[in-house]
């Protein structure tokens, strides 16, 4: 392995910081344990708090392959694990016909051999020589039967193909599962994972993240943006803005050459932060001014 696995919680924090991913110690501990105990890491949390990003960054930091399964309703084995290469099988049959081959047992065997299998991400994750990062994204969007299918892969690091037998991983993948909690994932699956709830970051951490991810703004603006968004999350909005939205918003403000927050700019760019009309109407109905007044009272806006 070119990049060795980190051997302490601090090493994990450092490793991720090297890829400009700022994480708190709790998440680092969970990740360290998942690497050490070879258990999948199950991340739940609001959209836009960096769950998927963690998987991607981890693959980069460990300099290994990233295999991603994006879940959606109706997902099945042929899209996630493996599929028989029907077209190639047909050609084999035609070739055998043309060559007047009569050994049918041999033909059947060659039709259902390992080469005829098209690898999809889950199977590919088990056949690498170096442990890849397997990212199963937004598992809550897949149907419940898919959870059950994952059990074998996650617990035993193997997939059973009925025609072929069991394929076992020589280098078990580092698995990261994310969920937005639009449905409850089955306990049997969670039991096989380490669980971590990814919360919104603290002011200091979010400042750090925004400085890294949205460079080019004035220091004053960073503070204003982060304080404003953090305060917004305490309002009972239909959907609170995530860190991703904070980064987008900062980039938007930089693009508009805004030097500081003022009511007009906030008003015009609310769509970057909020994606529900009700929330936008509510903010425009006086909450924006109230929050800006609060910032002013704390001498953050001059």
């Amino acid at each position, binding site marked *: 392995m070119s990049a060795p696995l980190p051997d302490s*919680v601090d090493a994990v924090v450092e490793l991720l910081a090297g890829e400009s991913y700022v994480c708190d*110690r*709790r998440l680092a*501990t*969970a990740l*360290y*344990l*998942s690497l*050490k*105990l070879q*258990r999948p890491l199950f991340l*739940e949390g609001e959209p836009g708090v960096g769950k998927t990003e963690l998987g991607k960054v981890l693959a980069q930091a460990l300099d290994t392959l990233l295999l991603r399964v994006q879940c959606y309703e109706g997902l099945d084995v042929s899209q996630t694990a493996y599929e*028989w290469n*029907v077209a190639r*099988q*047909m050609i084999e*049959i035609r070739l055998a016909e043309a060559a007047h081959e009569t050994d049918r047992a041999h033909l059947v065997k060659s039709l259902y051999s390992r080469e005829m299998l098209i690898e999809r991400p889950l199977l590919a994750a088990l056949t690498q020589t170096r442990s890849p990062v397997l990212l199963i994204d937004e598992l809550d969007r897949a149907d419940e039967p898919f959870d059950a299918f994952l059990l074998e892969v996650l617990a035993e690091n193997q997939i059973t193909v009925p025609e072929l037998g069991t394929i076992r991983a020589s280098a078990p993948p580092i698995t990261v599962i994310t969920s937005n*909690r639009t*449905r*409850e994932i089955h*306990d049997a699956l*969670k*039991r096989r994972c*380490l*669980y*971590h*709830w990814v919360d919104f970051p603290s002011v200091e951490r979010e400042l750090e993240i925004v400085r890294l991810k949205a460079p080019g703004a004035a220091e004053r603006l960073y503070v204003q943006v982060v304080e404003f968004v953090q305060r917004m999350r305490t309002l*009972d909005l239909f959907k609170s803005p995530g860190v991703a939205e904070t980064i987008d918003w900062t980039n938007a403000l930089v693009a508009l050459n805004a030097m500081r927050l003022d009511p007009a700019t906030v008003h015009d760019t609310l769509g970057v932060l909020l994606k529900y009309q*009700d929330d936008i109407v509510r903010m425009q109905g006086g909450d924006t001014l109230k929050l800006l007044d609060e910032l002013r009272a704390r001498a953050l806006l001059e």
Partner: protein
Amino acid sequence: MRGPTDMIAENIVHFARVLRGAGLTVGPDRVLQAMAAVEAVGLQRRDDVHAALSAVMLDRHEQQVIFDAAFATFWRDPKLLEQLMALLLPKISGRGERDRAPHANRLQEALAAPRAAHDAKPESQANKDQLDFDAAFTFSERERLQKADFESMTTAEFELAKRLAEQIALPIEPVRRRRHEAASRGRLDLRATMLKMARAPHTLTPAFTRPRVELPPLVVLLDISGSMDRYSRLFLHYAHGLARRHPHVHTLTFGTRLTNITRYLRHRDPDHALQLADEQVQDWKGGTRIASCLAEFNRRWGRRLLGGNAAVLLVSDGLDRDENGHLAEAAAHLRRTAHQLVWLNPLLRFDGFKPKAAGVRALLPHVDRFLPVHNLESLADLGRALREPALDPHSQMTRWN
């Protein structure tokens, strides 16, 4: 003399038992994992141990509160915790002292229960009562409760009724969608059949599809005004039970204002869910403004929640005025947008009930069904009643007139 590893193991086993008592599912496998986890992160930092144990022992975010309280109580001695010794001390055996801080209730029970069983001191009377009451309700009690009116139940009976209400079956039938899905019989799927033939030459195994069948969304509009107090409490439990089993149940309460509490009812734990809902709803036991609340529902939520043949359960006694025909207007709009509008009214239990209130008269022509809900039996019957062909509410009106 036992080694330190044994002590850690013993403490973790004990801690797991406390968590189990508080309702978390912590099996032996997790205990083993927890030991490995603690070993991996080491005992130098308390927050690391906390993070490691919670990563292993939690299933969902709501459990974090209970876990944190348990962790704080269990590994209490802070001076020693700062050194690594805390985990090694045999004296911290997990029973804890009587709690000083108001921890999560269930945790308190989990920590206190074994003690109450051991020594029957007078101050543990409360716990004992709890146990007695649990044992007291036998099957025949349950049967009697089925028919008892919610209004006339004692507190203890009402507690049990709440638990039963959580388990009542869904009142809606699955509907047939226009999209087809693969099935073992039904309409012949030529494309899939060809594919199968390609995969297994010289065999013909036909593939079929049939229309997808799924549960339509359900919207519960719950009147929480003063006159509905007991019924609405129970109905919240019913709605919570529904929401746990059917992902598309939306619950809104209304009295003087409309509140969407769907999000809060998603919590698995009924007490916690209802407490969260309680905090959101600000018009408990107040007056009723059915008309403006229904109008607000139509304006703000109708388009979002009433897709896909949604049924609306309107739970209200209808005791309101109908100023300028606003109520009738809102009800008519609601009926047009919902697939089915069912009005559940606790007052209907009285044989002599007559729709005298202006609100009842205004609503009645616009609902598809009008059913009583005043005891568990009528709740449980809801499903059956909704499957029967709808009576024409107009005929009910004429009957009363």
